[in-house]
């Protein structure tokens, strides 16, 4: 029994070791977070930093909603214009939910939100082939509090440039 247990664990560890190949940057905590800029450095137009700082990489949703608000559409229109100008980027849209829902429902909700973003960008000239979506449900909040101020920041779609 003991030996078998060890072999299972070893197999799991091996699998895990194979898994730790470099993954896309979208999976870790830094995903789409506003990158703190050093004051002295200037932002190169067309850089990822430019996109985050001067366009805005994320839009927010109302509770349990997947429709784009007016402020979200304004941000996405700017994103679309920028992405058409810098057409070398492909991107992953992350869909997120707040913690006030069940896990599987929130995974579905996040996917729906990410697709709302993708569709808006596509309607505004960003080729769908450049865009992938991934839902994190409620698994990757950016604001840590258990209050509406935090939840409103966590219900988001984030455009992560690859």
């Amino acid at each position: 029994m003991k030996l078998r247990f060890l072999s299972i664990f070893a197999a799991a560890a091996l699998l895990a070791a194979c898994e730790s190949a470099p993954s896309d940057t979208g999976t870790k905590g830094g995903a789409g977070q506003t990158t703190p800029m050093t004051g002295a450095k200037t932002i190169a137009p067309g850089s990822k930093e430019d996109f985050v700082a001067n366009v805005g990489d994320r839009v927010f949703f109302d509770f349990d909603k997947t429709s784009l608000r007016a402020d979200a559409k304004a941000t996405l229109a700017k994103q679309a214009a920028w992405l058409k100008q810098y057409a070398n980027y492909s991107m992953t849209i992350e869909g997120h939910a707040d913690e006030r829902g069940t896990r599987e429902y929130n995974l579905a909700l996040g996917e729906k939100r990410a697709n709302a973003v993708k569709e808006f960008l596509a309607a505004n000239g960003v080729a769908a082939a450049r865009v992938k979506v991934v839902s994190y449900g409620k698994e990757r909040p950016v604001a840590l509090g258990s209050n509406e101020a935090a939840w409103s920041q966590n219900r988001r779609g984030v455009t992560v440039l690859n």
Partner: protein
Amino acid sequence: MSRTRFLAAVAAVYALGILMAFPAVAEVRIDITRGQMKPMPIAIPEFAGGSGQETKIGHDIAMVVSADLERSGLFKPIDPKAFIQTVASLQVQPRFPDWKAINAEALVSGKVEATPDGRVKVEFRLWDVFAEAYMTGWTLSAAPSDWRRLSHKVADAIYKRVTGEDGYFDTQIVYIAESGPKNDRKKRLSIMDQDGENHRFLTDGSDLVLTPRFSPSSREITYLSYFKGVPRVYIFNLDTGRREVLGNFPGMTFAPRFSPDGNKVVLSMAEDGNTEVYEMNLLTRQKSRLTNHPAIDTAPSYSPDGQQIVFESDRGGGQQLYIMTAGGANPNRISFGDGRYGTPVWSPRGDLIAFTKQKGGQFFIGVMRPDGSGERLLAEGFLVEGPTWAPNGRVLAFFRESPSDERGRGQSVRLYTIDLTGTNERVLLTPIDGSDPAWSPLIP
């Protein structure tokens, strides 16, 4: 894992039953359909042994049996310091007045014997103290390292004889162990015995993993992993340690559960903003779509006969429970109370569906009949979620998360068990935070 070999001691048991000439007058019995009852006092002395190894195992078995029965909330093991009759004397014959004197209603006697093949033979008997009658017993042979499973089997036999319901102690729980800050939570697939022992991590936390569920054989786990950043349903084989992606779906797959015969997995796929329920046949590798609606259709769970599926959908405007045939026909809404209903799980007995409910800013664990009637809420909290049934359909496990401040302080995520009557809520201790529990069937 080595299987416990049963010495089909049926003959011995029958012989004993005949030898015990005591009439069963006032039978020791617990009616578990009633909540908040007084737990039955039971005496569980150490199992007798000759050698050091036998004595050690005999002592440990009694401890584990006592702990199992105590946690059920139905039994109250008596402190061994109060025992009058010695273990050696008990092997000859129970002296019932000695046990009546300490108010024991039931008495367990047992013996451990090492056999020449390196195994141990464990004999156990349950006695009705007031009727002075033998109730049940058996003899099993197993590797000495399997003494915990033998203990759980003793507890299961006692539970079954006294309550009339199958036990749930020789089982495991698979869950997600959690650590790290709230915005970068490390999650690991983990497994343990139902009492928290034999705990081990199955993945190392490099990929986000969620919602594990056992196969009917308990040897496989289906779950969601973000391996290489892509959320997909996998099957983990506990015997080989191998992990396999399930099917070739174009979109994100999640919310998997095995069918009762183990030949299918029902799950959700999300693609282009629409989540539907699919069935994946594990033998033919064919997949078929069961729902067809632009709403979110997810969290499917089979009825124990495999003929129906309960799932959640927001097709009516909010998250509610629906039942359809296993082929996807005739989806009918069953939840009509105030609030939102999700994560439905059909009881192994078929009589109830457990769910997570959200109402008035609180979360609840509840049950209702498959026709939607008889809703009862069992547990409540800022966040309680993800009920899972013990195989006898009398006990549920779920997880509870506490709120945190803006720096993430205060968050804790713990596993709990609760009786179907809504009583006897207990923390299920885990080495670190835990969520998404799934209870195994009785281990074969």
